[in-house]
């Protein structure tokens, strides 16, 4: 258990992605079987010991400590598992605060899988006595299923791949042919056996991504144009028997969108945009409208979804590409041929849940630019340009696909608060909250926050901004500094929406600092009303 608890502690305290990968890789090389396999299951969200509930943990601690002291402790610490791990009373017959090494993760999994729900607290309590505080925390997190150490399934798999010099995409391909504790994976990784056969199981293929368009134009004889939608990219993987949905990072999001998975019974792999029905983005002429990203956000990150949520925010997929049809891998084919296959494939699909991304017809680039400019009113993010002969390849490859976002909106805002960043930026005030005026300040207008940005500036500008914050602090609230309201920031953003979350009633999408306007007096920054007129 000690190796596992040290790994969890490391993942909690390490900020950098590479640091986390190193920790996972080292653990996977050093930990024994089958412990490391169970750890991998826990890290990828594939370990569910249903016998242990939070209430069982509460019961366990109430039997052992003064309930008043427990409640005071929990108020102070916050997290239940951590509170219990820290105040677990020592037993006189066992050395205090040491992990005596008697408990392997495999033993924990075996014992907790075999025990009844009623007997679980007793079993778990017996294990706790043999661990130190880190070990108890790790055990409770393992037993209740939610590690919450801030890593994705993809990162855990990348760590395993790094440990054994494998290609993470190969790990991904065989993943669903494997089951915890993944003996076949480690046998393959360490050369004791061949690659497991992924046949018949759904698995994630890395997405093809686009570069921002930097050239002034492209030749539409070589490139096709589609609308760029503001949803999330989704991959639909159907094996005929089973359908799974993956996000761009390779996380399995089937559970959040069961209605989509249910509506697809084919054997194919498709790439598309997950959207919610609505009329904020686009119109009939763009291939049908969709709700704003905010609406989709209501459905993201949920393990289970209610019928009410599905009715209120009905999801559908606008399809972009067909990667595999039946047994045939189409990824090496030119985009044009895949597109033809996709159009044919649409015939068999449920039109409530799936539609086809429209190809924009334009005789030349100037005409396309005009069409794109006209789409601002329809609140469309921009245009995708795809080389007609491009194969479907993982990641961003120069010249194949471009995203041509519409020019951002901008507003002149006043810096109000600043907060330190993370990682390399932890010594800089790099997150800025900015506001606009409710009315002209000479008429008694006030500043209300309209957004927060932490990018868009150069390193030199960051140093300057950091100095400004330190030199102009008027108030401190924990990690947040309130600054003298004198600095105007030109903020760029993709769009702006109504939002109940903010006092100003506005929420910006992708705000970033475009320019520092040292030349402009704060009183001349924009009014909230002018931002409201930009709402799409």
């Amino acid at each position, binding site marked *: 258990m000690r190796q596992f608890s040290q790994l969890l502690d490391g993942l*909690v*305290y*390490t*900020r950098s992605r590479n640091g986390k990968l190193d920790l996972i890789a080292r653990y996977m090389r050093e930990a024994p079987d089958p412990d490391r396999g169970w750890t991998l299951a826990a890290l990828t969200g594939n370990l569910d010991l249903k016998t242990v509930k939070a209430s069982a943990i509460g019961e366990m601690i109430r039997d052992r*400590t*003064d309930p*008043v*002291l427990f409640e*005071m*402790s929990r108020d*102070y*610490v*916050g*997290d239940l598992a*951590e*509170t219990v791990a*820290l*105040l677990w*009373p020592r037993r006189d017959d066992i050395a205090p*605060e040491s992990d005596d090494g008697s408990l392997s993760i495999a033993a924990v999994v075996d014992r907790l899988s075999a025990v009844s729900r009623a007997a679980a607290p007793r079993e778990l309590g017996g294990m706790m006595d043999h661990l*130190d*505080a880190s070990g108890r*925390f790790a055990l409770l997190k393992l037993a209740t299923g939610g590690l919450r150490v801030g890593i994705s399934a993809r990162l855990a798999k990348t760590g395993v791949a790094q440990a054994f010099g494998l290609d993470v995409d190969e790990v991904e391909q065989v993943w669903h042919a494997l089951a915890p504790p993944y003996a076949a994976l480690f046998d393959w990784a360490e050369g004791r056996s061949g690659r497991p056969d992924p046949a018949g199981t759904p698995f994630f293929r890395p997405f093809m991504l686009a570069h921002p368009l930097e050239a002034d134009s492209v030749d539409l004889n070589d490139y096709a144009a589609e609308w760029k939608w503001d949803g999330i990219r989704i991959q639909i993987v159907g094996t005929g028997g089973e359908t799974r949905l993956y996000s761009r990072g390779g996380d399995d999001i089937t559970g959040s969108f069961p209605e989509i998975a249910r509506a697809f019974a084919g054997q194919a792999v498709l790439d598309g945009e997950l959207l919610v029905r609505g009329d904020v983005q686009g119109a009939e002429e763009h291939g049908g409208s969709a709700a704003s990203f905010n609406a989709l956000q209501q459905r993201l990150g949920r393990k289970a979804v209610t019928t009410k949520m599905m009715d209120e925010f009905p999801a559908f997929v606008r399809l972009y590409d067909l990667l595999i049809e039946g047994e045939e891998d189409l990824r090496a084919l030119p985009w044009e041929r895949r597109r033809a296959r996709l159009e044919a494939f649409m015939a068999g699909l449920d039109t409530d849940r799936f539609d086809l991304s429209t190809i924009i017809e334009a005789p030349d680039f100037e005409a396309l630019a005009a069409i794109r400019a006209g789409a601002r009113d329809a609140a469309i993010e921009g245009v995708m340009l795809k080389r007609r002969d491009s194969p479907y390849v993982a990641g961003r490859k120069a010249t194949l696909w471009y995203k041509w976002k519409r020019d951002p909106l901008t507003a002149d805002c006043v810096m109000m608060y600043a907060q*330190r960043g*993370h990682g390399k930026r*932890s*010594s800089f005030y790099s997150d800025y909250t900015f506001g606009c005026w409710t009315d002209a300040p000479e008429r008694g207008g006030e500043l209300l926050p309209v957004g927060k940005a932490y990018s868009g500036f150069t390193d030199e500008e960051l140093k300057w901004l*950091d100095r400004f914050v330190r030199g102009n602090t008027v108030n401190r609230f924990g*990690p947040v500094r309130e600054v003298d309201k004198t600095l105007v920031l030109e903020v760029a953003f993709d769009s702006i929406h109504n939002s109940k979350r903010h006092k100003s009633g506005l929420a910006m999408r992708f705000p970033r600092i475009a320019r520092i306007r040292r030349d402009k007096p704060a009183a001349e920054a924009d009014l909230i009303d002018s931002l409201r007129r930009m709402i799409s």
Partner: protein
Amino acid sequence: MMTAGLRFDDGRSHLLDRPAEVPCGTNPARPIFCFQMPSAAHWIEPHPTGIYVRPADAWIDPSLPCERALVTHGHADHARGGHGHVWATRETLAIMALRYGTASGTAVGYGETLRMGGVEISYVPAGHVLGSAQIVLSHAGERVVVTGDYKRRPDPTCLPFQPVPCDIFVTEATFGLPVFRHPDTGSEMDRLLGALHAEPDRCVLVGAYALGKAQRVMAELRGRGHHDPIYIHGALERMCALYADFGVPLGDVRPAAGMAAKDLRGHIVMAPPSALNDRWSRRLPDPLTAMASGWMRVRQRARQRNVELPLVISDHADWDELTDTIAEVAPSETWVTHGREEALVHWCQTHQMRARALALTGREDEEEDEG
């Protein structure tokens, strides 16, 4: 005075409106308590600004300037500037002189006895930081111990806490919750040295309170055979020099200022906690941020400070030390000065001991860094 109900083992509540008749027990597993009413409180008075010793007309650790101050130790929430005359250990007076300029003071040696207005006063080691003392007051046949801050673990930079049986025991409760159980100091030092050796291209930046914690970590490192130079932030320099003057060897300690980043690789750098994530640390070679504090036991506390290597090393008693000490000195009444006093008072009451929380002001200011 306390009128809160006491809870006995049978779970019933009893109001202490008359002397409880609890026989002095002989069971060694249970602390022994004889309730004698009224308690010894009539000549010593807790006030929000400190503890007043009436017959001596003197205040203990007053938070406002006063004529006659008895000071337990040099931390700023106990030792303030501006008093008329201060009685404290030689070390504490030197620390106060360093912080506030020279004040009029009388040095009191450990074990020496003063007489002030019919009160016998002596200073006994508290084991908290260099020069820290418990103030023991005897008057009218009663003894009161004011601990200031204390700990029970070995500390190479100061004398160990000495328990003194008493009638009223005035204790801190900085870590007065059962979640605070500091691990063995040696294992924390091993983690620090392990991280240092595992990352030869980085430096380990250890945040530690400038008075006490920083020097203790240095002395512990030396005790474990680490004799490389330790580089320090300017804010630690004078206090480290003071410790050395008092014969606490800290080894090769050098200013970090002016060092090239590459020359700090593989070394330990120490700074006050406030400098950990500040501009000062930008000069360091990819520092691994550590912090030595009892607060590091709680994950969220460590994460809030962007600490990668939390070291649970405290100069305050943890929960077990607090409760064991109260049981050991067996007072008829415990006063809890600052920290998580409700929990400790609750513990005393469930163990049939009289206890009350004192609402002292200004004692929490530096806790976050000092812990």
